[in-house]
C-alpha cells in the first residue's frame, strides 16, 4: 500500500470517529444513550471481526469473553470496591487470560470443529456463571450503582450515569478498539493473519508459525470483547449471566455479517443498523425478531459480503 492510500484510509476512519464525537451535540436524549450503547457493542463486534474477518476463525463462543470482561470488572467493584480504571483493567486481563487458555486447547481444531468447541466452552462458562450464583447472583445479576466511585477529572467528579460521561467513555473505548483493529490490519502481522485466512498451509511454508499468529489474534479478539464487556458493566451498571448466553455469541456474528466481514467499519455499521432494526421493529410488533430475521435473509441474499463488503467490492477497493 502506498502513502496516498494510507492517508486516504486514515482520513476516512478518523473522520468517522470525529463524526461520532460531534454526534453527541446533535442527538436527542433517547438516541444519545442508544449510540453510546451501540459504540460499546460495536467494540465487541470489532473484536469478533478480528478473529472471523481477518483470521478466518468462526467462533460461537465469544459471549464468554464478553462476560469474562463483565464479571472480571463487575465482581471486583461489587465485592472489593475497585475503581473504574482498575475494574476495566481486571476485566480485560480476565478476558485475555481466558482467550489464551481457550486458544491453547481449541486452536488444535479449525473450521466447523473450532466453531463447535468454542460453543461448548462458552456453554460451560455460562453454566458456571449460573452454578456459582452465590457469587455471581446468576441470571438475576447485580447492579453496580452506589458501588462504583465516580471518576475524578481535575477535582470534578464524573459519574457514569451522566449521559455525557457515558457517551464519551463509550466513544473512547470504541476509538481505542477501532484504531487497534485498523493498526493491526495495516501492519505486517495483519498481512500474515489475512494470509492464514486465505491459505494456511502456504503461509506456514512461507515461514510463519500459524498457530502463534492465530493465538495472538484470539487473545486480542478476546481482549477487545472483554474490554467491551467490562465497559458495558461499568457504563450501564449491570452484570448478569444473560450476557454469557448463546444469544450474545450469535449477536456479534450477525452484526459483523451484516456490516461486512473483514472490514474495519463493518462492525460499527452492522451493530448500529441491527440495534435500530430491533428498536423500530419492537415498537411496531411483538414479533419483532421475525422482522429482524426477514431483513437479515434479504441482506444475505442481496449483500452476501455485508454492507461495507459490498461498498468495497463496488466502489472503494482500498477499504481495509
Amino acid at each position, binding site marked *: *500500500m*502506498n502513502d496516498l492510500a494510507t492517508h486516504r484510509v486514515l482520513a476516512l476512519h478518523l473522520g468517522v470517529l470525529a463524526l461520532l464525537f460531534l454526534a453527541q451535540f446533535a442527538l436527542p436524549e433517547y438516541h444519545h444513550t442508544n449510540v453510546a450503547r451501540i459504540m460499546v457493542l460495536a467494540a465487541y463486534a470489532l473484536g469478533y471481526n478480528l478473529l472471523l474477518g481477518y483470521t478466518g476463525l468462526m467462533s460461537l463462543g465469544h459471549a464468554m469473553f464478553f462476560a469474562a470482561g463483565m464479571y472480571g470488572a463487575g465482581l471486583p467493584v461489587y465485592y472489593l470496591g475497585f475503581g473504574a480504571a482498575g475494574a476495566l483493567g481486571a476485566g480485560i486481563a480476565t478476558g485475555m487470560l481466558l482467550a489464551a487458555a481457550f486458544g491453547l486447547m481449541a486452536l488444535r481444531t479449525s473450521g466447523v470443529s473450532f466453531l463447535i468447541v468454542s460453543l461448548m466452552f462458552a456453554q460451560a462458562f455460562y453454566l458456571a456463571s449460573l452454578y456459582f450464583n452465590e457469587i455471581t447472583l446468576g441470571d438475576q445479576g447485580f447492579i453496580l450503582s452506589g458501588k462504583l466511585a465516580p471518576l475524578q477529572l481535575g477535582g470534578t467528579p464524573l459519574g457514569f450515569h451522566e449521559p455525557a460521561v457515558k457517551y464519551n467513555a463509550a466513544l473512547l473505548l470504541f476509538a481505542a478498539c477501532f484504531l487497534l483493529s485498523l493498526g493491526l490490519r495495516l501492519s*505486517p*502481522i495483519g*498481512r*500474515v493473519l*489475512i*494470509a492464514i485466512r*486465505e*491459505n494456511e*498451509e*502456504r*503461509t*506456514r*511454508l*512461507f*515461514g*510463519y*508459525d*500459524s498457530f502463534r499468529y492465530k493465538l495472538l489474534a484470539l487473545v486480542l479478539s478476546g481482549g477487545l470483547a472483554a474490554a467491551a464487556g467490562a465497559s458495558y458493566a461499568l457504563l450501564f451498571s449491570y452484570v448478569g449471566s444473560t450476557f454469557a448466553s448463546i444469544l450474545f455469541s450469535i449477536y456479534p456474528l450477525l452484526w459483523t455479517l451484516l456490516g461486512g466481514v473483514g472490514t474495519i467499519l463493518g462492525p460499527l455499521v452492522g451493530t448500529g443498523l441491527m440495534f435500530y432494526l430491533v428498536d423500530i421493529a419492537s415498537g411496531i410488533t411483538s414479533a419483532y425478531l421475525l422482522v429482524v430475521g426477514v431483513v437479515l435473509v434479504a441482506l444475505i441474499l442481496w449483500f452476501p459480503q455485508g454492507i461495507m463488503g459490498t461498498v468495497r467490492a463496488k466502489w472503494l477497493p482500498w477499504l481495509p
Partner: protein
Amino acid sequence: MATVAAVAPLLETEALCKRFGGLAAVNDVDLRVAPGEIRAVIGPNGAGKTTLVGMICGRLVPSSGRVLYRGRDITAMRPWERLMQGIVYTFQVTSLFKSLSCYENVALPAQRRLMRGFAARLALREKAVAERVCAALASVGLAGIAEQRADSLAYGHQRLLELAMALAAEPQLLILDEPTQGLAQAEIEQLCDLVRAIARSATVLLIEHNMPVVLALAGHVTVMDSGRIIAEGTPGEIERDAGVQKAYLGR
C-alpha cells in the same frame, strides 16, 4: 551412484522413508545435492517425487531416515523454520492467495526475513517490503500488474507469480514441483531462462516431467521409480540408461 560430490553437499537425505499405511511412497532414499547445481528429479507418476520433496521442505514428516541441510540434521525442524534456513518450496498445483492482489501475495514472503526478532518486527517499514516486492515481480516480468487480483491472472502468469513469491523469500535451496505443467511452449522457454537466472545464486531442485526442459536445465538427474532411486547421472547418461528407458521413457 554415478555422482560423487567433491564439495560437501548442501542437501543430503539418509535412508529416507515415508510410508502411508502399507505403501512405501518413498523407500530408503539417499539423495545428495551439491551447492549451486540444478538437480532434476524425474520418474513416472506415483514414483514418490513430491513425497520426497515434501519431507525436505517440512510439509511431511518422514517415517524414518534423516534430512541434512548444510551438514545439520533438520529432520525434526518445522516448515516455517526451514524457510528461514533458505529452503523454499513451490507447489505442483498453483497455491496462491487468490483473493489478494499480486502485491500482497509477494509481500507475505518478502516481509518474512525483515521480521526476524521482535525489534526488527517493530521497526519494519512498508517501504522496505515494497522494494523487495517490486524487485521480485520485475524479475519474473510481472511488474505492471501488482494491483491485480491473483485469481484474475492467466494461468501462465499465475505460475510466474508463484515464482516471484518464492524469489521474494530469498531461497538458497529452491524446490520447484513441476513448474512447467500446463504452460505453453513460449512460457516454458521464459521459465527456463528464469530458472537459469535463479540458479546463479541458489541451488535448484526441480521435479519435472518435460524431458526437453530437464535436458536443457539440469546438471544432474535423479530418476525415481516406486519410491526408490533407480539411476543418477548427467542428462546424457540418463538418456542412454536401459533401466531408465524401461521404467520411465517407455522406449
